[in-house]
């Protein structure tokens, strides 16, 4: 089934690992929508969250090829699980005096934060699931989006299970 899949990988916190993973995706021709990387609760390990586009065959290859890398400790596919996703965006919108209050109202509905204000622009911080962020972008478009930056999705499984401990088994077991 073609679609977007979220993969979370726990990797060694060493220079070159991110380059290795990016290189792997490039050389195998996998389509990445976003890639977020940061520290975890374990100082020696980072977590990389990748959103990959493709069908089940591609997804299986992505999981297996990532798992093959020595610096990758665990690979978990989150798409099929009960999980929480967030994407954080900073967006700078044209906001001349007459339009400002509308923009601020929409921002409040979306529970966003105004983080910067200048004579002609407002910078807003929005975080949430992808649909929420996309919806806000569409609402801001008519005003004029000056600049936009997104972190890409990060995700975590609900409940007590720890994704970093959850082992991905080889295909046939």
């Amino acid at each position, binding site marked *: 089934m073609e679609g977007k899949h979220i993969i979370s990988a726990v*990797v060694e916190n060493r220079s070159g690992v991110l*380059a290795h993973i990016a290189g*792997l995706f490039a050389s195998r021709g996998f389509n990445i929508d976003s890639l977020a990387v940061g520290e975890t609760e374990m100082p020696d390990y980072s977590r990389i969250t990748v959103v990959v586009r493709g069908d089940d065959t591609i997804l299986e290859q992505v999981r297996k090829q990532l798992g093959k*890398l020595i*610096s990758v*400790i665990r690979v978990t596919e989150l798409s099929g699980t009960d999980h929480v996703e967030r994407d954080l965006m900073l967006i700078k919108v044209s906001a001349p005096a007459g339009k400002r209050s509308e923009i601020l109202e929409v921002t409040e509905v979306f529970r966003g934060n105004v983080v910067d204000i200048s004579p002609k622009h407002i910078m807003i911080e929005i975080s949430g699931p992808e649909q929420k962020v996309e919806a806000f972008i569409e609402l801001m478009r008519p005003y004029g989006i000056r600049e936009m930056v997104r972190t890409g999705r990060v995700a975590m499984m609900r409940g007590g299970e720890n994704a970093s401990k959850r082992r991905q088994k080889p*295909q046939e077991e």
Partner: protein
Amino acid sequence: MERTGAKILFEVLRQEGVEVLFGYPGGSVIPIFDALHDEPDIRFVLTRHEQGAGHAADGYARASGRPGVCIATSGPGATNLTTALATANFDSVPMVAITGQVKTHLIGNDAFQEADTTGITRPITKHNILVKDVDELAHCLKAAFHIATTGRPGPVLVDIPVDVTTSTSDKPVDADVRLPGYRPHTEGNMRQIKLAAEAVNQAQRPVIYAGGGIIIAEASDLLRQLAEKANIPVTTTLLGLGCFPETSPLSLRMLGMHGTAYANYAVMESDLLIAIGARFDDRITGDIAKFAPDARIIHVDIDPSSISKNIKVHIPVVGDARKVLEKLLPLVKFAERRDWFARIDAWKKKNPLTYGPEGLRPQYVIEQIDALSPDDTVICTEVGQNQMWAAQFYRFTQPRTFLSSGGLGTMGYGFPAAIGAQIACPGRTVVDVAGDGSIQMNIQEMATAVQNELPVNVCILNNGYLGMVRQWQELFYNRRYAGTPLPGNPDFVKLAEAYGAVGLRVTDRTDVADALKEAFGSPKTCVIDFVVEPEENVFPMVPAGEAINRMIGGMS
């Protein structure tokens, strides 16, 4: 005890039982070479190009089963190794490559002879490590050997800045290797193996498709027992040649683009394909959509990412070939399958491998090499027509006797690999089957062979062309031979003699046997220039994108 990084390197090499080191010195590795001077138990083989060192370490590893070790300096030394690393990576060869690097504080500063070695080699090595702290050097090296030799083997590169080799550490070499991200699955799931056994016992038209993984796992004897116990014909890939004796009546020999017609027909008509230690490469499958249309597929492989990568697999078994075959063998039963073998015999009679009658045919040279050399001869090849004729016309009966760059297809591989193989197998006959194009790619290694008194026999199938490409141009591009004629070839006999080797030329079919006998009996490095039919083709051939039962040439 405080000792330098260079000394620690040799401590680890000794612990790992390394006996031979191939390489070429340079500024960033002088401290290592200085430490080498005090190491009487490690034989250093100086090649004449780092690529030669890499391929020699590769040949050593394939012939012996032990990891090959090579060393090069930073910058151009390391970049010269890349082809050899990619070659080893593609064919799963255990190798540890040590490269020098500029001083740690100069990295990233465009220093003299600096290259981003780990960046450049990342996609072509199983793993690589830049060691920035001498206290970590021992663990990095131990880890490198562990990774290179376990699971699906491969080349591992350790990049060592020159100041790390001169700094000192008193940390002992810890025998334990801690790699939380690396746990190869070798056992094989018993439930899957039972399913596989059931499928085998019910199959009417089974075929075993065996690859290099059998040889890596040292499972040739078990494969033979399986084939004989269950009465199943066996075909091998290029890298699997030698894992099953080609003299056995069960052997279908090699399959694929230039495989035998009967192997290809058998696979296409099979109802069960048992793939062990092979990866369904495009040279084997031809048009994937049409490959083995009626067959259920069992795939035994130690690398889970190879399973169901190209083709849907019905019964996957992740594991080491040896361990899986040990568990499978007691569960399979003999079945006569008389009709299946009758069909196979008919195919064998109707379409054996053939070639034209007169003249000095390269296929004839290979057959004579087969006839006149001992069974445990190591045949190395270059790439192209020479490689395919060697695969087709030499009958392999033992593992680790066929060394060839299968995945990457590297011209210039065979000669340095033969050097490595001869060092691994002193006393055995080693042959490099070459073309006039390929042999010139690492010809400088003649000095290495002669200096080390290696009686390697280089058999050049000299047709004055880049043969395989010329063949494609003849068959598919209207004989437009662009870039394929090779004028200006040296006189190979004089060239051999210039290096201090023996040079022989054969222009007549009747002189082939004598030249080979002379070379095989000589303790010196020998080069035989066989001036063969210039436009001979490798047949049968599966054209690119065709199903493998649609072969051209050499068919009746």
